């Protein structure tokens, strides 16, 4: 399988995401410069974390004008799997590929720590290897992760089962103290109506090896491979390395 990882000038989790795709998953991966106009024939696209253009204005506000974003939008419209992590999620919101907006964290402080996230939906390309309701320990690292949308939008997101990840307590409960940033309904991640575009604030790519504190985030990437294998069986995908099977069996 081939991953395209989009590099904005201020992306800073691009190398980490590339490392997971290449070294941990053993897949093909390519860093795609934001001024490029081709995704290089990738099967899945990831917008990594960082501060795309410095983000002094509004997080992700300028990134949506980068040439590559037209290709990402086309790829998404064709049903290709797109994952936005942290700043990548913010970019997806600004680009209109996902609904809503990010506000400063409730306490107006940047926050970096491991916390618990519950997988609410397993029928997206990035969660299909999860158990329904599975709680995973992965870190956040952001100053603007306070998800907001108008009440009617939230109501629609909940009704359509578009809330994919929620901040919870270690035991999996939606407790007030488990919300790190003030997000409406503890929303940590969501998908579009077609369910192929997913954005989340926590960093699964930072939790793919026990050596760095948790391997719980690997399930997100295992999901992509599972999606890839299913697509392969359906004849929609041509390249998937043998390494993928090993990862799926972990």
């Amino acid at each position: 399988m081939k991953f395209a990882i989009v590099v904005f000038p201020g992306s800073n989790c691009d190398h980490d995401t590339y490392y997971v795709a290449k070294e941990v998953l053993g897949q093909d991966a390519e860093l795609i410069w934001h001024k490029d106009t081709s995704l290089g024939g990738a099967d899945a696209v990831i917008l990594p974390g960082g501060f795309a253009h410095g983000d002094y204005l509004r997080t992700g506000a300028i990134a949506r004008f980068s040439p590559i974003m037209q290709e990402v939008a086309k790829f998404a419209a064709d049903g290709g799997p797109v994952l936005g992590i942290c700043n990548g999620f913010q970019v997806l919101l600004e680009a209109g590929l996902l609904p809503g907006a990010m506000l400063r964290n409730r306490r107006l402080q940047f926050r970096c720590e491991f916390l618990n996230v519950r997988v609410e939906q397993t029928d997206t390309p990035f969660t299909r290897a999860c158990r329904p309701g599975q709680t995973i320990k992965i870190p956040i690292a952001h100053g603007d992760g306070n998800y907001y949308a108008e009440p009617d939008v939230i109501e629609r997101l909940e009704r359509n089962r578009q809330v994919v990840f929620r901040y919870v307590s270690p035991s999996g409960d939606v407790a007030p103290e488990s919300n790190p940033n003030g997000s409406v309904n503890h929303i940590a991640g969501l998908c579009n109506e077609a369910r192929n575009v997913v954005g989340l604030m926590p960093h699964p790519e930072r939790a793919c090896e026990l050596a760095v504190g948790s391997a719980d985030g690997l399930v997100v990437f295992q999901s992509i491979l599972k999606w890839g294998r299913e697509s392969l069986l359906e004849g929609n995908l041509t390249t998937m390395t043998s390494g993928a099977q090993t990862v799926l069996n972990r």
Partner: protein
Amino acid sequence: MTSDTINDQVLQRHGVTREEYDRIVGMLGREPNLTELGIFSVMWSEHCSYKSSRVHLKTLPTTGPRVLQGPGENAGAVDIGDGLAAVFKIESHNHPSFIEPYQGAATGVGGIIRDIFTMGARPIALLNSLRFGSLDDALVRRTMSGVVSGIGGYGNAIGIPTVGGEIGFDRSYAGNPLVNVFCLGIAKADEIIKGTASGVGNAVYYVGAKTGRDGIHGATMASAEFDDTLNEKRPAVQVGDPFMEKLLLEACLEVMKTDALIGIQDMGAAGLTCSTSEMGSRGGAGVEIDVAHVPQRETGMTPYEIMLSESQERMLLVVKRGREAEVERIFDKWDLHAVHIGEVTSDGKLRVKNHGQVVAEIPNHALTDEAPMYRRPMSTPAYLEKAQQLDLESLGAPPAPAQVFTRLLSSPGISSKRWVYRQYDHMVRTNTLLLPGMGAAVVRVKETPRALAMSVDCNGRFVYLDPFVGAQLAVAEASRNVACAGGLPIGATNCLNFGNPEKPEIMWQFGRAVEGMGAACRALDIPITGGNVSLYNETDGSGVLPTPVIGVVGLIEDATRVVGRAFRSEGDVVVLLGETRNELGGSEFLHVVYDQIRGVPPQLDLAREAALQQVLVEGAASGAIRSAHDCVEGGVAVTLAECCFDTEVGVDVDLAGVSDAPAGYRDTATLFAESASRVVVSVAGGQLAGLLALASAKGVPARQIGRVGGNRIQIAVDGKQVVNELVSDAERIWSTAIESWFEQRRAIA
């Protein structure tokens, strides 16, 4: 060149003495003009010239088989195997951080990152050593808040993790906080790039942010005490732009992959002046630039202002003739404009032109190697004799140990720094093997099986009471922390924060501390590859505790054998390495319970310290040691508690009472004395005999004191229980103490 009127007032404003001025005239063979005086004043400032400290710094050990680059370049470098080098340095940004905490701290981070990538290294870790006044002071809380968010604001955005550090509190820092930032990067050992200009006719390029009027005379400001004119000094603080620095970082690393580059240096203190003259001086060449070509943010800037501006995020490059287009293309990709501002010449001079007309012409050596060097007078401080007297009995009976225990856990110096480090992205780059607050910082080196452990330390109270021993204790603590994680100390960098060197008593503190630091580094075989001196840390004539911070880097051969401080499993055996003596001098106990800094610091036997560190490194490498945490502030009692907090498992130990403590102080000294060279380790039962044999072979005292288990911290002295707390209660006290100061403030506001 017309000579402007330079009188005593002008000299004073530039911080140049009459003697120094005469020397300038002698070197030039004429009177300088105002631009030239400005250039001399920043290059000869304490901050740039190290004129008071150089005679002492020369005595430090700086060489060793692993040292690839010692002092004199932008950063030091040591060999870590596999053809790779660890490039690191620590630097202060104390003065700007008091005037404007957020920007002062942020630009401190930006400056040290530039020093590292300038060497061709990709920065992978940041640490910091911070000192503030007492948290009950609202101004101190505001300063700390600003410094912490400034450090985070810069490091988080640029994507370099802040993986560790230390914070101390003492009233002496209230008007003069210390902000020391350490950065480490990885480079290919044979591709380290130097800050040098050579090859007549090669092009001098300017790249990065435009030059403004910010920071003019920043270096001079950092070379003077604060007084009530503080607010007037605000324009001398620069404003940081981490996004610009991120572009520079990536673009410069890309340019370095070509061989079109001769040398590169960042424009930090003294900006364009320092980078041009230092690069020329190192390469034995001259540098000629025309300031009219320098991109400017403001209109009407004079050559004087352009040369002295300390605007952030600017780099100076020397590019091989004929390769200019290649370099320009890379910067273009990153939307940066590299501007050709001059050439390398053969005459060894810094020549500054403005629209073709020469406005300054000074031999580079006059600004660098031949800057003044002073052997300032030193005298033993008057406070010392009295401060070193400690009569425990005169203090009366100490509070019950259990009570002292919880008070220490909630003291800001000891309690958890979570409120701070969770504002820092400490995981980006996915190399962080030990999370902050878990002992030394440890990052893996992805291309290799290895990891690097880092620790920055200094106990200013010990240095105040005995600068020689205090500085040795700082080296011992930092290297011990690294060894606890399993790292063999291989190099160090120092940041020497002291008061006004023109006062003989301060200079004595400085001289003795450097002597102590040198002796300890020699005994422990740790070369110092560079660093920074920050003097004049005084406000209204009152100085900070002398604070020579040392950052030690250690090499862990097997990244899967990193040892943390937390106990791992029930039933493991707890061993105390080292000896506890009646050493409460300068302790956190005296500071918290009696608000005193008194006595003499703990004694340090460097040979035994070296042996202890060998036990730690070998025990970690063999896998025998499952956790290790040294005993410093708060003594063995606090160490034991901290070992319980991460895994929330209890401990039950019985300590041998200190024999030489006065009646009534036996338990107190046993629990809270800060004797050096002690570490609490835990091992699986089957490994105990092996560990004790290893310790005995190295001559390190080792005693089995108890076991890991249960949910309480139970400590006995000579069989009598003196502390018995639920781990969860102790953990809550310890982990919420600092944030409660800030939450409280919000509640009031």
